């Protein structure tokens, strides 16, 4: 059974067909890169999968269960973690508290009125924080973090429900070269260790071709190519709409 199955998914904004009949599947332990020029519909596709927007048509299945049109907080219960293109974290809390809040939700005690949160799930939270390399920043206010560290924090938060699928919208955007590599190595390790499936978007072609098992190319809401990185890289159509500007190592933006 696939971790994620998307069938004929569509979403239009007024006259703009942001996602236009997209179908694909993601298997356990697979790293799939979703690429395409700006405005291709990558974020909209993520939003439709994750319940942030209601798709106009099509179906979304997570591990065999239909989640089409369900709100994000329900989709999350099916084991889907998400990081955002523009990071979304709790700015008035520490790193540790961000993860603790997520863990409280995972353990279904978000409505708990008893023991203070800071005494709960500490070890579990610290382990996740260490996993993404933020151990030293655990007690820092999120508002003081560098952008790259916010991305790491988002990853730690997304891991709190032991997800089967991670949706990562531009996980390395805004990071320096070294940071990008580190972030993706982290993802690689997660995939290897716990078999999570990762669907990510990315504009840095080094990251895409270095860390994806499979690439899906989106243009104007439609899939124009998909397959192994080398196959996609050689595809003429893809080069025309997207990779034309990619010349070994350059970053397409």
């Amino acid at each position, binding site marked *: 059974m696939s971790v994620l199955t998307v069938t004929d998914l569509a979403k239009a904004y007024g006259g703009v067909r942001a996602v236009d009949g997209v179908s694909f599947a993601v298997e356990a332990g697979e790293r799939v890169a979703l690429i395409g020029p700006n405005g291709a519909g990558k974020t909209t596709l993520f939003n439709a999968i994750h319940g942030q927007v209601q798709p106009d048509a099509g179906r979304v299945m997570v591990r065999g269960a239909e989640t089409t049109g369900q709100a994000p907080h329900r989709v999350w219960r099916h084991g889907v973690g998400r990081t955002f293109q523009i990071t979304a974290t*709790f700015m008035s809390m520490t790193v540790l508290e961000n993860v603790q809040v997520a863990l409280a*939700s995972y353990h279904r005690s978000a409505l708990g009125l008893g023991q203070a949160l800071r005494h709960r799930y500490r070890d579990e939270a610290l382990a996740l924080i260490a996993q993404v390399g933020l151990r030293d920043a655990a007690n820092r206010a999120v508002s003081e973090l560098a952008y790259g560290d916010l991305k790491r924090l988002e990853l730690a938060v997304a891991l709190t429900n032991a997800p089967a699928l991670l949706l990562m919208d531009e996980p390395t955007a805004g990071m320096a070269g070294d940071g990008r590599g580190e972030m993706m190595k982290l993802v690689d390790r997660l995939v290897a260790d716990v078999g999570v499936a990762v669907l990510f978007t990315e504009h840095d072609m080094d990251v895409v071709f270095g860390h994806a098992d499979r690439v899906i190319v989106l243009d104007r809401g439609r899939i124009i190519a998909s397959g192994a990185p080398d196959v996609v890289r050689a595809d003429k159509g893809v080069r025309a709409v997207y990779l034309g500007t990619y010349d070994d190592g350059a970053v397409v933006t």
Partner: protein
Amino acid sequence: MALEDFVSFIVAQAIAGLASAASLFLIAVGLSIVFGVTRVVNFAHGSLYMLGAYIAYSLVAVMGDSFAGYLLALLLAAVAVGIIGGVIESTLLRRIYHAPELFQLLATFGVVLIVQDLTRTIWGPDDLFAPRMPGLDGAIDILGHAIPTYDLFLIGVAFAVLGGLWLLFRKTRFGVLLRAATEDRQMVSALGIDQRWLFTAAFVLGAALAGLGGALQMPRQAASLSMDLSIIVDAFVVVVIGGMGSIAGAFIAAVLISELLAFGLVIFPQITLVLIFLVMAVTLVLKPSGLFGRPEFLTAEDVRNPDPPLQPSDAIAKAGWRVLLAWGLVAPFVLGEFSTVILTEIAILALFAASLHFLIWGGGLITFGHAAYFGLGAYGAGLAVFHLSAGMAPALLLAPVAGALGALLFGWFCVRLTGIYMAMLTLAFAQIAWSIAFQWIEFTGGDNGILGVWPSAWASDPTVFYYLAFLVCAAMIWALRHVMFSPFGYTLRGTRDSALRSSAIGVDVMRHRWLAFTLAGAAAGVSGGFFAFAKGSVFPEVLFVSTSVDGLVMVLLGGMQSMAGPILGAIAYTEIQTELNRVTDLWQLVLGVFIVALVVVLPRGLAGLSALLVRRRTS
């Protein structure tokens, strides 16, 4: 009734409704234009309307003998109010464009208070009746019903203004700029327009429309000091239904509401308000941004100034809490028995402020109608005593239940909105609760209130009652503080910081907010219940917007970012008010100036004052 009579009745009511819609439209559209351009909800918009009426009254007295003179008087009143609006914008509003919505609402409410007292000082407290408009003082016969010609004139003016605005917005450069500013802020700065000029101009336009709306009312109703708040609430309802920033929305919603009132008053006068409530509720559930509103006004996530993380009390804070508690326990002995009345009030209001602080600071839920739950608690207790002859203990237990049930009902709608929409909706609900208490005389005693709500014999000694109130309120405040540190409280804080992230970690954001709203409603209900017994009576004022504002001022005065803020705020505010009442009749004026100054000079409250002083000294 014969069919003909029925038809003519319908037509007559419809025309009366349209005539009322005219003024409501003028107010609402001005409010909407100002909001669209400046993103400020101007609470004082109703005051401009009231000023329009009073100024028109004076001008009509001088020059209103002829049709032309009367008309000129009305127009001059609108111009005068436009100028006043310009002054308000350039002296006050300009300084608060970047402040949080709550501060903007509060500062403009300060203007409401100032205008109230100034108007009272200039024109006196009595209602003023203007003569009818020469030439339009008759009636014409439509299908056997006498329709005042002035009503037809009003309807004509409304359509003329609608047409004029349409032309302005479509055909003039100024209008294009206004539209651009409403639809896309960046575009305006990109066009290189002087935003300050545009903002002032939009405000003058909105103010003049409000002034015209008020002036036009003169031949129909008396100018009175309660015009400002009653119209602003109706206008809020109209823009919430029609959608902020939309002219067509304001027009359609104004007609809808006025017709509903016109027919409702004839057919089922008792439930007209409930009808409006239902229309508003249904609209918001189906389309949270209103009929023609723009959804993006709903989804502003505020990341400008994140608060620092919550800190558990350190040694100094713990000592501070102990001192406060000890002071509360010994105060009646130190200050003498006569002080217990004020001490009791402070304890009660501190809980009220703390429950508001919990919502605003703990959950980012901007409510401008927290009086509803305080008042429901007070009425719950008072009505239990009055109708059921309940004792004090059961009545006090009923208070939080009443507060919580009200919050459960109103909150279900309010948590669907955010920011300024939520603030307006909470206010509208509270005002509806107030009108019900005011109008349902058989049940609530109306304006005469409920008397004889006295404590049981064992607590009838003021000192004993003080200790009861103090201990219960202190325990509740402690409990609210405890909740803020609990998983529930942190999750709530999370929904405030980022609803997006909250839902992505499995939090049902609306349900969570709804529960917080209910909890705060219960806490406010407790304080309302005690308030009823402390006063021995319950009047509709406990539900009125001024009670909500009292709570907000206490919270801001004490400092939003501190757990002790609401308590310090309640102490300071009660003391200030007591002293002011002693020295001046114009306490509304002083309070208004005080609020404005608080927002402009000290947006972080008393707690921020020390920070400000430290910074001054070091720089």
